[in-house]
């Protein structure tokens, strides 16, 4: 019989930030997610048809309190939409909302409750299930000895992808070293090409690494999923998103979402109020290109 205490008891002081981070990986109404708990924090993984995977990293420093006492790393399945809608009920505007998350409950549930008010208490118990092993455990490897990546303003990326809906086709992403540029192109019932030129649009294309021309096509709906629910805080905070092309054309899209500052002093925010990196949740998407060369089979 394992120890009687829960594997994890943690407290979070800004629920809205967590809602924002998790909403970033919602692209469908019903998504089954896998949550992994460790001493480093919580990771939530969602996946679709072996072509698209997203991960949300919530490091332990995001939590006001994080008591981890599991052996190994517990994993469980939970409905993403339900979890986010549930968290949303704890996010009351204009009030501090401190919640406690506990796993597992007596029936392996995920337990949540508000802990900031004696006379009004919100609680939730979410059923979990034993997760299937992730069927597609992609293996993101760098394309070569030099990286193929660029960092673009998240707002600009979202706008470009939104616009690329129009041609109704898959999207070709091309990185060109001379002149250094990123091109998104769709050819369907119309053609649309969006270029980001490194030395020209310096406010949009913030970083660029590419030593040889690469070009891959991605299904529009998967590319769209990477930006469709970027939280407005990302746009407001003027953040950048990093895109990397790995071996075989696998695309990695990374966003940073603020789990915003609380009104009360937090142990990880210094006195100047500057937001430490630890108050940020990391979001990663992996998108398979349309013609994916299995790494084991081909060059």
């Amino acid at each position, binding site marked *: 019989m394992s120890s009687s205490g829960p594997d994890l008891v943690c407290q979070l002081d800004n629920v809205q930030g967590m809602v924002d981070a998790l909403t970033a990986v919602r692209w469908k109404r019903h998504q089954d997610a896998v949550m992994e708990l460790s001493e480093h924090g919580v990771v939530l993984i969602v996946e679709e048809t072996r072509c698209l995977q997203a991960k949300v990293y919530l490091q332990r420093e995001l939590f006001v309190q994080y008591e981890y006492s599991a052996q190994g790393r517990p994993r469980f399945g939970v*409905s993403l939409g339900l979890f986010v*809608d*549930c968290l949303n*009920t704890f996010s009351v505007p204009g009030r501090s909302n401190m919640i406690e998350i506990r796993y597992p409950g007596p029936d392996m549930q995920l337990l949540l409750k508000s802990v900031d008010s004696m006379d009004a208490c919100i*609680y939730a118990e979410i059923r979990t299930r034993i997760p299937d092993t992730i069927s597609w455990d992609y293996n993101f490897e760098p394309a070569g000895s030099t990286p193929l990546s660029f960092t673009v303003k998240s707002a600009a990326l979202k706008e470009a992808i939104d616009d690329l809906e129009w041609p109704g086709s898959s999207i070709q992403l091309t990185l060109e070293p001379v002149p250094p540029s990123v091109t998104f192109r769709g050819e369907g019932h119309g053609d649309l090409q969006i270029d980001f030129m490194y030395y020209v649009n310096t406010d949009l294309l913030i970083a660029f690494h590419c030593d040889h021309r690469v070009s891959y096509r991605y299904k529009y709906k998967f590319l769209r999923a990477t930006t469709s629910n970027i939280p407005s805080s990302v746009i407001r905070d003027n953040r950048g998103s990093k895109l990397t092309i790995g071996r075989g054309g696998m695309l990695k899209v990374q966003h940073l979402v603020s789990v915003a500052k609380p009104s009360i002093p937090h142990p990880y925010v210094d006195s100047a109020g500057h937001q430490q990196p630890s108050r940020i949740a990391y979001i990663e998407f992996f998108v398979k290109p349309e013609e994916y060369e299995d790494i084991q089979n081909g060059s």
Partner: protein
Amino acid sequence: MKFKAFLTDNGTSLLEKRFLPALDKMGKVCHLYFTRDHTIFLHNLLNGDGVQSIAQFRKEALFDNYRISSQNDDRIAFTIDLSLLQRAIRSSVSIYAEMGGGDGVDTGSNRLQIKLVKKLPPNSHQPLPFLTFESKGYKSAVIQDVPISKPLSRADVLELQSALDMAQDLPRTLVQVPDLNQLQNYVDRMKHVGDLLNISISKYGDLHVQISTTLITLGAEFRKLLVVGEQVEVPAEDRDLSAQSRTQRAVQRGDAQTVQVSMKHFAKSLQCHLAKPDCAFYGIAQEGACLTVIFQFFIPGSRQNDKSISLHCRLPVLDPGSS
């Protein structure tokens, strides 16, 4: 059958800015019931399905020179489309303002008169009943006709009145919700999670709302609320229990009742906040027959209940729940 009255400024404001927007959310069409002393808006009193709502005004709260007569004890009732009524009052108000009303002008000549009439509408040979709004200015008059149903027969009015009498039954224990906004905020977010709401009200002053599906249980408990009616101290051993346990034990003891209502109905009844009540009381009727919510309005500038205005709703209970 005659009805004529002048809507006062206060009455116009009460209706246009507060009550009609709220009542419109209860249902597009309702009964409008005039008696010698009261004007009452009634939703769903004669059909059992939806949220019942009763907004009752003493005639002085809305009107001046209120004149009513009918062969049915001076009672008149009919159905009316609230959006048409709202539109008529709103445009009368703006016309009145345009005509220079309210700037020290003699209000005697610029007033909004409401009358029950029978008129021949265009393209028809049958005269039809209307509630007519007349704004008379110095130079012109504006008349708006709001179509209404044929006034209810004596038998139907009787039925309406007895439904109204039955709906005035008060639950034995009512708890006051101090912040309707908070409750509404919470219910708005809960809506996405499920369709059925379990509501428990205890004599300790606890209000516990909960959604329970196969995948999730989500609830909020508000404790130590003001109680009107039967009240009991919470037993010491229950004070530190979880909301669910405390409610279960209270129900077993007979100190609380739980009923299940439709989330849609509950959210709808919360729209009454548009009438800007000062507080709201929730209670469960005898035998769990319905969930009652009573909105109170204070006399402006005081914390005294304004008895000339009342608004309450009754929500049908879906499953008797444990009691």
